């Protein structure tokens, strides 16, 4: 509001006053004024909208199927059937314990692998001189725009020929290193790792790989942690490819949720207990490391 007023003042004021104001403004810029309650109300609403569906899922998971059928709008106070419903999910015919284990294995291995291979490639692109470097980096960035998901049919045929369908390796290998990861680590290392450090290690007689291991990898840690987080979230929530290649015998959590829906669609409290169970680990991770996800997205946006 005050900037509107100041603009009016400025329009009618002399050049001297405008200059004085400009001086004052540069000391106390637009961004430094504290916003009023309207701003906080709007943001409060936005966050309410992002959280209410999750709370709704929790309310249903703590309730019973009959109750859900009776009251379309649940009472905001959770009922006491949550543990009971979770136990029913875990003891259902879906093999939910196995799905939790599978999701943990796939997400952890994929994250480690993406971080390792992306840092390796990023280090090479950012700090080593070799012929064709710029062209190859441009190629890597270009591949991000290729919808490789549309190659699933031959990929599925390859996996069947290898005998990998239904095995976790079929989900882990295709995601073991990503263009995004390589690009991300290249960007970070080109700024964060001084050439002097690499030179020093080389002079001390380190081989190339030892230099990478002892100098580049430690320097890459902050960006590597963010990349690991993104990869973890991505593989934990991934559905299409695991659904096709793993099938119902050896599901990850999202595939198990789909199976739960297909076999227990009348039992909403059971399905929602599954939803909560599949979502809670990532929400916990988010509570601990969410700020790094935020700064990761924002850093990526400026560079990308």
């Amino acid at each position, binding site marked *: 509001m005050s900037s509107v007023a100041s*603009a009016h003042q400025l329009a009618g004021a002399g050049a001297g006053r405008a200059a004085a104001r400009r001086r004052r403004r540069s000391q106390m810029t637009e961004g430094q004024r504290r916003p009023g309650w309207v701003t906080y109300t709007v*943001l409060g609403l*936005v966050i309410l909208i*992002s959280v209410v*569906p999750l709370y709704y899922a929790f309310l249903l998971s703590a309730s019973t199927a009959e109750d859900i059928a009776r009251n379309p709008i649940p009472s905001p106070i959770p009922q006491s059937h949550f543990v009971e419903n979770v136990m029913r999910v875990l003891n259902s015919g879906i093999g939910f314990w196995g799905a939790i284990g599978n999701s943990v294995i796939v997400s952890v291995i994929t994250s480690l692998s993406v971080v390792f291979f992306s840092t390796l490639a990023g280090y090479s692109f950012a700090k080593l001189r070799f012929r064709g470097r710029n062209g190859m980096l441009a190629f890597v960035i270009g591949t991000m725009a290729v919808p490789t998901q549309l190659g699933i049919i031959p990929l599925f045929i390859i996996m069947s020929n290898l005998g990998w369908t239904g095995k976790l390796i079929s989900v882990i290998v295709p995601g073991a290193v990503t263009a995004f990861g390589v690009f991300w680590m290249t960007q970070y290392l080109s700024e964060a790792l001084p050439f002097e450090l690499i030179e020093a290690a080389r002079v001390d007689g380190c081989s190339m790989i030892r230099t990478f291991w002892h100098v580049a990898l430690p320097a890459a840690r902050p960006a590597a942690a963010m990349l690991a987080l993104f990869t973890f979230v991505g593989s934990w929530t991934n559905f299409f490819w695991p659904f096709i290649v793993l099938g119902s015998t050896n599901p990850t959590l999202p595939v198990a*949720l789909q199976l739960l829906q297909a076999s227990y669609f009348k039992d909403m409290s059971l399905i929602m207990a599954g939803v909560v169970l599949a979502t809670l680990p990532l929400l916990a991770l988010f509570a601990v490391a969410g700020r790094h996800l935020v700064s990761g997205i924002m850093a990526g946006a400026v560079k990308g």
Partner: protein
Amino acid sequence: MTWRQRLSRWDVKSAPYLYIAPFFVLFALVGLFPLLYTGWVALNKWSLVKGNQGFIGLANFQYVLSQSRFWDGVANTFSIFLLSSVPQIFLAIGIAAVLNANLRAKTFWRMGVLVPYVVAPVAVSLVFGKLFADESGVVNAILTNIGLDPIGWHSDRFWSHVAIATMVNFRWTGYNTLIFLAAMQAIPNDVIEASIVDGANRWQSFFSVTVPMLRPTIIFVVITSTIGGLQIFDEPRLFDNFSLGGPDREWMTVTMYLYELGWNVQKNLGRSAAVAWLLFLIIVIFALINYAITRRIASSESHPKRKALAK
């Protein structure tokens, strides 16, 4: 030259290529090759169970293009895509503008908008499928309570698209908000101040300075959401428990049709591959058109202002 020196020189020469090799090898094997080989599979009679049964030319493409279901899928996909991406970009820019203020507890608000991003699309779909249930859903219950007619979220084509687009918006608006927020913070303060000194009010300076300067970011978000959005599968697949996209395929998308042909009903990978190739074509064309339009809109808006600022 000693053996050791020779080894060390080889190490220096080969290391850069060795380190980037894993990406290129993997991309070739699981990215590029399958994408191209899809074209070959599409030219063959290729069954999920029996494998390749011989070359049949363009018969798979002819079959797919003659199916009204394929065209329904294309229409549904575009409809869901437009309903999700357009409002999402406006919302994200709006929320980013609010977040761009000098807030107390910045990190809290930023994390707050990002919460839906960590929920799997499958889980989002199950929750929203229930929120938008025709009989016992929250949304219809609220509509009835305030005296409106309930909506057939699972029977009306348009409203099912609205429901599915809502899921996409729920998960991605916060993510894109942070991207726009970062872009806004990268705009130098002087530029905004200059416009205010020149007599613009806050709204004017937002629409004629901030938004045009977001142009590269808008193009980036539009292109990435095109590539992802036209392949949408998870949300519509779990929107009801039959997983076929509705009684009359009201919300069946192209990728769902691809799955249905290849794995579900016909087990015909050849036809499925034809769909994949057609979708690939659609995405490429659409991304190019999108790029051209976004560039033109953004540049025609920003052009005069840029000149004004440049002086």
